């Protein structure tokens, strides 16, 4: 597993524990007490680190290579899952996945950005950055959900839209905009989870939801800290400052009224326990859908509309 830089004190303790364990085995000296002591200390250090995370550190966790990905979470939380492909227009975009699923007895349509866990996967998935056909695939699946009255669950995990020639040629601005407009009018509930990076328009394009939940160490931002640093701060090295200024952590986004709640992650981050993460998401889905199953379709649409209608701070 890749370790994050700020976990260094912790990693050193773990290494010590390993050394002692191996020593105790080869030398037959009982070091159990020693080990236990250091283990306790490690836990304290871990708790300490994770209770004082800075925004840039959270960004690192959100982007962690072992962060649970959409497909894995969907498989973990679904009783049954049928992946569907294609926008029926141009291409199947591997950076957006989706399909039919049964989650805790609820039959839903699921959609998510898909990153990889190694370079090969990431190239195939375009690092989770959709082309227009990805948004259009998502829209096709959402329309199917609306047609068959299935709630929609989306998982956001993307650095953002893809800044490439072909993505522009094929109209990614139009594709994103259309999703925003169409999602506003669906009468089935839409539940969104930001599970890693929520990057700009590429994230929002599947995020116009009745409920937007953020995993504890996920981020949601109008622009990447790096982009913001180079454009606004005119200094690419100031991305840490930018990440703090932009207010992108789950706590901040909820405080701003943009997300509805934070879903706690296992101590040390979701990448240590995908199963636990999937369970938390599943529980949230089940509890949300219980609520919406009693609600009128037009009220569900109205709730979502008003939620976004009221976003913004200004003086009049």
């Amino acid at each position, binding site marked *: 597993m890749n370790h994050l830089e700020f976990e260094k004190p912790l990693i050193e303790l773990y290494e010590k524990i390993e050394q002692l364990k191996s020593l105790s085995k080869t030398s037959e000296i009982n070091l159990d007490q020693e080990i236990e002591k250091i283990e306790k200390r490690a836990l304290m250090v871990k708790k300490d680190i994770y209770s004082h995370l800075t925004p840039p550190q959270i960004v690192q966790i959100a982007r962690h290579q072992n962060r649970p990905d959409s497909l894995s979470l969907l498989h973990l939380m679904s009783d049954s899952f049928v992946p569907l492909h294609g926008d029926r227009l141009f291409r199947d975009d591997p950076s957006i996945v989706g399909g039919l699923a049964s989650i805790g007895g609820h039959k839903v349509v699921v959609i998510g950005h898909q990153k990889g866990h190694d370079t090969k996967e990431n190239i195939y998935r375009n690092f989770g950055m959709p082309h227009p056909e990805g948004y259009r695939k998502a829209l096709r699946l959402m329309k199917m959900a609306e047609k068959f009255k299935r709630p929609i669950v989306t998982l956001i995990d993307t650095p953002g839209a893809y800044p490439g020639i072909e993505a522009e040629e094929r109209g990614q601005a*139009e594709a994103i905009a*259309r999703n925003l407009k169409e999602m506003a009018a669906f009468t089935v509930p839409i539940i969104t989870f930001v599970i890693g990076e929520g990057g700009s328009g590429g994230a929002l394009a599947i995020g116009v939801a009745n409920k937007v939940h953020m995993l504890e160490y996920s981020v949601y931002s109008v622009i990447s800290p790096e982009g913001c640093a180079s454009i606004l701060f005119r200094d690419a090295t100031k991305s840490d400052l930018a990440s703090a200024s932009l207010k992108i952590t789950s706590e901040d986004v909820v405080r701003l009224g943009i997300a509805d709640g934070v879903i706690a992650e296992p101590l040390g981050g979701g990448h240590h326990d995908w199963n636990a993460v999937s369970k938390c998401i599943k529980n949230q889905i089940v509890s949300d859908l219980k609520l919406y199953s009693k609600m009128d379709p037009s009220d569900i649409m109205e709730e979502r509309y008003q939620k976004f209608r009221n976003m913004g701070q200004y003086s009049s």
Partner: protein
Amino acid sequence: MSILDWLSKKQKVSPQAEKLNIPGDLWVKCKSCSEVMFIKDLEKSFKVCIHCEYHFRITPDERLSYLFDKKSFKEIDGGIKPIDFLEFTDTEPYKKRIELAQKKSNRSEAMIIGEATLNNHPINVGIMDFSFMGGSMGSVVGEKVTRIIENAIINKAPLFIFTSSGGARMQEGITSLMQMAKTSAALSRLSDAGVPYVSILCDPTTGGTSASFAMLGDIHIAEPGALISFAGPRVIEQTIRQKVPKGFQRAEFLLEHGMVDMVVKRKDLKQRLLDIVTLLGVQEG
């Protein structure tokens, strides 16, 4: 008008025109073809270069005067003002940037909305002002776009929005991103109401503005040469080291790629809008 008034007015409305060191300052040099022309001739030709047809960026007031019936524009909600709710500071505090832009433009934000008439046809109008912080969309722009849409839903008159914007206003963080969803959602209701919406994409229309209300018109008209994109050429070149081809993301390119209905010269725009309003604007039966 005194020469000083005239000068100060000229300076406001011609940010792209390079001033020449010629007595009286009556000349401008075209940014595109470098030819020199009388500023009077430039203004007579709707701020379009008389040599190469380069379309200079213009102010909301100029747009109003070119298109709509004289004094017919009634502004709506001109008093909504931005707040620095993130206490954001980059190379300068957001608060200060706002003040500067307001002072320079004599306007509270990067967009005006209101009702006007086009040859007596009532029209709902929104016009973005690129000179105000790059026409960026924060809470105020998002709210104004939404309000003019809501206005159109009520009065059923066609909606024209002239976009000119670098995208979302980063100083308002994630809240600025949400303006994309808010304005697009409002347009979904405008569609349901059957009210025509013509989006006129002016130079430049990029980022979150292009990926929301700018691209959701029933009809898309682009000004010649306008840059229209989500990720602009510089972002593409810097991020993925792809060199973009000539003409990429310009109005004419978007026409070829199916994203706009027409590229219309500024001098022809009024007639075209009038035709559209006549053909689409009045519901029968």
